[in-house]
């Protein structure tokens, strides 16, 4: 187990190094730069732009800039944002809460509803419910989220005036009710797709299990159906779901990007989009390294949880 962990961690460090090099190269070689936005519409002259590029060290050769960035990273210094001058870790941290709040709510909703739909669909395979659930899931996976979000805003905020059309809270309110009212619409839109994914996973996992020998044995023993399902089938069907949780972890960052844009949710997705359109190199690199780490931790966690939960698997 220990040697397995060490090997996995070693691999992870190597991967992160590759990711950082590729990411850095793509970012810095792309045309344009952090000063572009000042070039057309402000009172800054070419002289000012050139001077500031020099002061920021943007004119140095790429390997030099990468080496400097890497060395600073190793000492725990993620640099400062070009946009607002704040440390990168603070910038990421200040957006993480909003994303977590939105994603966790949506994921919880999705797991609860999705698993229920999936299990029911698997038990009553090819029933009307199953067919409807399948069709519904497929359609949900096929609707462009931003379109769905805009329609939802139009219906529930503009026409019916039931819910706010965006934002995380009313400034200066701060009550729990206010937070919840703002959360409902974006979380539901996001949960739609997630529910579809979860119900599909749960359904196929459950189907795999239902036809296993031990379930047949349990049935043959004459146990009541609900006991067979609750006691044996569901526990085993839930196993692969652990992997799904692990693999869904990194989508925490990218997954909500579109929803955050439509609902002006101040989370990581918005931050990433703003940072990349500004070419805020330090923040973009920070987000990239952060999310790559999440991916690696997620898959490692999934494997380990799986090994712990399923005694048949031995890591080695």
């Amino acid at each position, binding site marked *: 187990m220990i040697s397995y962990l060490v090997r996995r961690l070693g691999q992870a460090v190597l991967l992160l190094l590759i990711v950082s090099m590729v990411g850095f190269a*793509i970012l810095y070689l792309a045309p344009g730069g952090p000063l572009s936005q000042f070039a057309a519409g402000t009172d800054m002259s070419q002289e000012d732009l050139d001077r500031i590029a020099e002061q920021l060290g943007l004119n140095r050769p790429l390997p030099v800039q990468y080496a400097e960035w890497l060395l600073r990273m190793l000492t725990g210094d993620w640099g400062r944002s070009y946009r607002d001058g704040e440390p990168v870790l603070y910038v990421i941290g200040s957006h993480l809460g909003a994303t977590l709040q939105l994603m966790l709510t949506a994921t919880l909703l999705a797991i609860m509803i999705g698993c229920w739909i999936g299990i029911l669909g698997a038990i009553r395979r090819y029933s009307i419910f199953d067919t409807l659930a399948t069709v519904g899931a*497929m359609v949900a996976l*096929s609707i462009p989220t931003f379109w769905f979000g805009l329609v939802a805003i*139009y219906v529930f905020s503009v026409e019916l005036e039931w819910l706010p059309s965006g934002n995380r809270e009313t400034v200066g309110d701060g009550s729990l009710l206010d937070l919840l009212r703002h959360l409902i619409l974006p979380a539901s839109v996001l949960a739609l797709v997630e529910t579809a994914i979860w119900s599909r996973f749960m359904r196929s996992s459950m189907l795999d299990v239902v036809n296993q020998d031990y379930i047949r044995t349990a049935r043959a023993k004459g146990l009541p159906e609900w006991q067979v399902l609750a006691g044996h089938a569901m526990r085993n069907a839930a196993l692969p779901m652990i992997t799904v949780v692990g693999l869904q972890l990194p989508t925490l960052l990218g997954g909500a990007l579109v929803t955050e844009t439509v609902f002006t949710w101040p989370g990581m997705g918005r931050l*990433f989009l703003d940072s990349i359109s500004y070419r805020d190199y330090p923040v973009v690199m920070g987000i990239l390294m952060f999310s790559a780490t999440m*991916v690696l931790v997620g898959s490692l966690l999934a494997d380990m949880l799986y090994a712990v939960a399923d005694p048949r698997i031995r890591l080695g």
Partner: protein
Amino acid sequence: MSAAAPAAAPTAGLRVLERFRRHRLAMFGAVTIATLTLACFLGPFLLPFDDTYIDIMQRFAAPFGGAHILGTDELGRDMLARILMGGRVSLLVGFVAMAIGMAVGILVGAVAGYYGGLVGTALMRFVDAVLCFPAIFLLLALAALVEPGLTSITLLIAATAWMDVARIVEGQIRSLRERDFAVAAEVLGATDRYIILRELVPNAVAPIVVAATLNVARAILLESYVSFLGYGIQPPVPSWGNMLNNAQIYLTSAPWLAILPGIAITLAVTSFNFLGDGLRDALDPRMDGR
């Protein structure tokens, strides 16, 4: 997803077809895709309107009210012509991006799976590294490198869609390699290329076909997201994605501008998803006994 049993027996092939035919949703998907494709590629020739002809006096004509069956857009262009031409672009992006993604994925996966060792490890670690990038990061970062356009957007989407396939193929081939028929072929002195192409790849075909179908769906959806984020196909060429994106501001005043491409995307993507789902069931030999 299970490993496919060695195919070949005609009865097995027939059984797959039969299972697929029975899958009503998959049939629906296949028929819809065929209809959409035909309409998008032939339709524009039959219409009296050009998809890029601007008639500013006719803008925002509502559907079913005059010469323009589906109405006109914000510049007075015929919506039906634009939906059909947009469909051409979106479907083309979907298919070509899938094909490229598949080709790259299969190549990388097959080489890595067959040779294993240092080459295999290096390739798969690279796949892992690319998977560490959020797809949207790859898209946006790469989009900045190239001039926006049909070719570049197709390549961009393909660039984010080959890793899964590579993993599937690598896994399949690695396990198949250990099996009897590959070992037998090697003993008989077959070349590497022969073994990979003739023996191993066909056996991994079931999951690949499923992944391919789902990737078309994904590519069509990604095209609309890329448009939404401002890196889409350049006007005046229509695509479902950029039509949907441009329609946002008219959601209240001219809702059909957003509804039509929205329906088109949802319909096409759903169909591909149904198809993929049906293929998965049909190609899974374990389904026989049920």
